[in-house]
């Protein structure tokens, strides 16, 4: 099942958008890999470049956007230079399926959902119409929709049902990778929980990898095996969710975790991150977090920080099968924990000291 070759490999990706008098460096030197049968969560704030990455993966950048450098390899084949039409013919639905951000509005309102499925099947497979419908009906069952409703129009569905229809379509031609851009953001929490649960259940009977793009680290920690944290177009840190949870080494990852509301620890004061993400006008040849970072040094602004492996921590042993409660998330060491902070070695101590400092300040003011 798991081979040495990653399913998707993004290396040194730079994406730029051309404006009238300006260039936006939306993604700078981004690298991460998705292994077979693993879910990777790509997290970051608005404007950090995560949706741009999704669009470059499926050759669907806006017309003023282009991949300036870097490679995207799917099963070893470079796909970054494909046109949208080539990508659609060779990869879309069969190999890579896409769940867009506004999935609720991406069904054709004038077609029955079954027709939309048979249309996809007709374009990409040699299945007969009956075969296609049978398979689609089966998938309705998988995502928890009544099979009798495949001939409904989208407006007859609720938001959560539309979302599940999109997931059924994404699974339809048995792709090996699903790219989901904020798949549950528009949904209420109970519906979100149901959908995420389906996304977990579908991996029980098939090999499936997923790139789950979201701003919500709790969704990633609970549902993904690996993660990549982005800030200002750069990958700040990547590795297994266990590594990043237990030993975060980039200041942004550390502060983001402390800023995230956790209903279990509501007495804790939330950490705040100063400033705003940078507007990416200039060439990002420095750490994009430097202006917000409590530990920034002059070196952080000299040269873009390389994504370097994090040595295995002494305090928390890594790899070799740390198992989460549901038994699925095993850190098998396939994905290397890497961060682009040049002070990564000092970071654990600095972060602890920072916490003490804040605590002391609070006690003083209170």
């Amino acid at each position: 099942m798991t081979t040495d070759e990653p399913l998707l490999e993004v290396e040194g990706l730079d994406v730029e958008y051309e404006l009238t008098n300006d260039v936006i460096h939306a993604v700078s030197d981004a690298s991460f890999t998705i292994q077979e049968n693993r879910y990777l969560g790509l997290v970051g704030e608005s404007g950090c470049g995560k949706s741009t990455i999704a669009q470059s993966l499926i050759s669907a950048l806006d017309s003023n956007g282009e991949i300036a450098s870097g490679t995207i390899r799917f099963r070893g084949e470079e796909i970054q230079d494909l046109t949208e039409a080539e990508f659609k013919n060779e990869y879309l639905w069969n190999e890579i399926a896409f769940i867009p951000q506004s999935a609720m509005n991406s069904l054709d309102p004038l077609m029955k959902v079954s027709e939309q499925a048979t249309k996809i099947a007709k374009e990409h497979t040699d299945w007969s119409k009956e075969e296609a419908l049978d398979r689609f009906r089966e998938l309705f069952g998988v995502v928890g929709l009544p099979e009798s409703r495949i001939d409904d129009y989208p407006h007859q569905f609720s938001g959560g049902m539309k979302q599940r229809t999109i997931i059924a379509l994404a699974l339809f031609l048995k792709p090996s990778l699903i790219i989901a851009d904020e798949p549950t953001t528009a949904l209420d929490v109970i519906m979100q929980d149901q959908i995420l649960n389906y996304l977990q259940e579908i991996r029980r009977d098939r090999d499936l990898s997923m790139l789950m793009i979201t701003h919500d680290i709790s969704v990633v920690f609970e549902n993904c095996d690996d993660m990549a944290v982005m800030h200002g177009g750069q990958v700040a840190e990547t590795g297994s969710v266990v590594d990043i949870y237990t030993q975060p080494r980039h200041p942004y990852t550390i502060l983001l975790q402390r800023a995230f509301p956790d209903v279990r620890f509501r007495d804790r004061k939330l950490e705040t991150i100063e400033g705003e993400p940078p507007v990416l006008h200039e060439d990002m040849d420095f750490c994009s977090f430097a202006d917000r970072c409590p530990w920034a040094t002059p070196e952080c602004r000299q040269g873009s920080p390389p994504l370097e492996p994090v040595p295995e921590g002494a305090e928390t042993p890594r790899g070799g099968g740390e198992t989460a409660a549901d038994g699925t998330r095993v850190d098998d060491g396939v994905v290397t924990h890497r961060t682009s902070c040049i002070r990564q070695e000092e970071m654990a101590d600095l972060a602890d000291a920072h916490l003490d400092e804040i605590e002391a300040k609070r006690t003083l003011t209170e």
Partner: protein
Amino acid sequence: MSSTQPILEVRNLEKTFKQSTGILDLAKERLGLGDNPPIRAVDGVDLRLEQNQAQAVIGESGCGKTTLLKTLMGLYSPTGGDVVFDGTNRDEFSKADWKEFRRRVPIIFQDPFNSINPTFTVRDALLEPLGIHDMKGDDPEGKAIDALEKARLTPAETYLDRRESELSGGEKQRVSIARALILDPDVLLADEPTSMIDVSTQASLLNLLDDLVEELGLSMLYVSHDLSTVSYVCDRINVMYLGRVIESGTTDAVLDNPKHPYTQALIQAIPVPDPFSDREPTDLRGTPSDPINLPGGCRFKDRCPERMDVCDRTPRSTETEDDAEHTVACHLYYDHEGATGADGHATVRAGNGMHGGDDR
């Protein structure tokens, strides 16, 4: 009666909407032909917001929380029930009372990107409400600076001449907060004020709202779908489902010891930022129905794992055993057998005035 008077009290509030205002439907209605039941968006809500208290109204889309807020603001007039502000029933408000009410009860909207006039500078945005309420005094700019500082926009002077387009999302929301604070309000109404703000900025906004209640002695009604953010700001939580408050209690009581099966599912469904968490996904299925032509009884009965026959009668809000401040509207928590009178729930409700006399 308790010793202190609540700043804002809502009693049995109802707001219904007509499903259609089309001419055919109206004609049918006149002739007594068509059956066009109303949408019962808010259906018998009681709330008591004390001085210097932050309370949350929580629920999924369509539960009526936004309608409740808009009715409280006075954008909708209630179909039934009372809103009492600082001891005065709003039915008795004069025009001047309404103006004073708007000064003392400002709102912070969900979307800071569209709630500030883009042609205004921050100074204009802050001085406008002062002008309307005749509060400019000798030093309006000083008041503006003071309000910006309270909203932690510092140095305040540097913000005065900026326009909406020169502010980030978090800064915009702070300007909205400053605009509310400049009127020296008593109650802040907040409609999901952080839901469109990024996590790194959201934390500082939540801390700010929390501090404001503490430092300025404000009260706040915070409407949201997100229990985890609310838990950092609010003292009490009211859970709404299909137009009714089904559980109410202190934040700790509701989150640590939820009673209503819906609240339990809602809390269980919150993802936690921890890969080792042993949270089980909720087994609740389906979505709430539309609040039209609802069957009688408990609104949640069709999705409820604990459904009993008695659920066809409307549950009254009852105190939980251990905590008089923690109420839940569920038959599981009181002896409904003993309370059954000749006509079902009417006897149950005698004297407590919850939800009115009848379901329909």
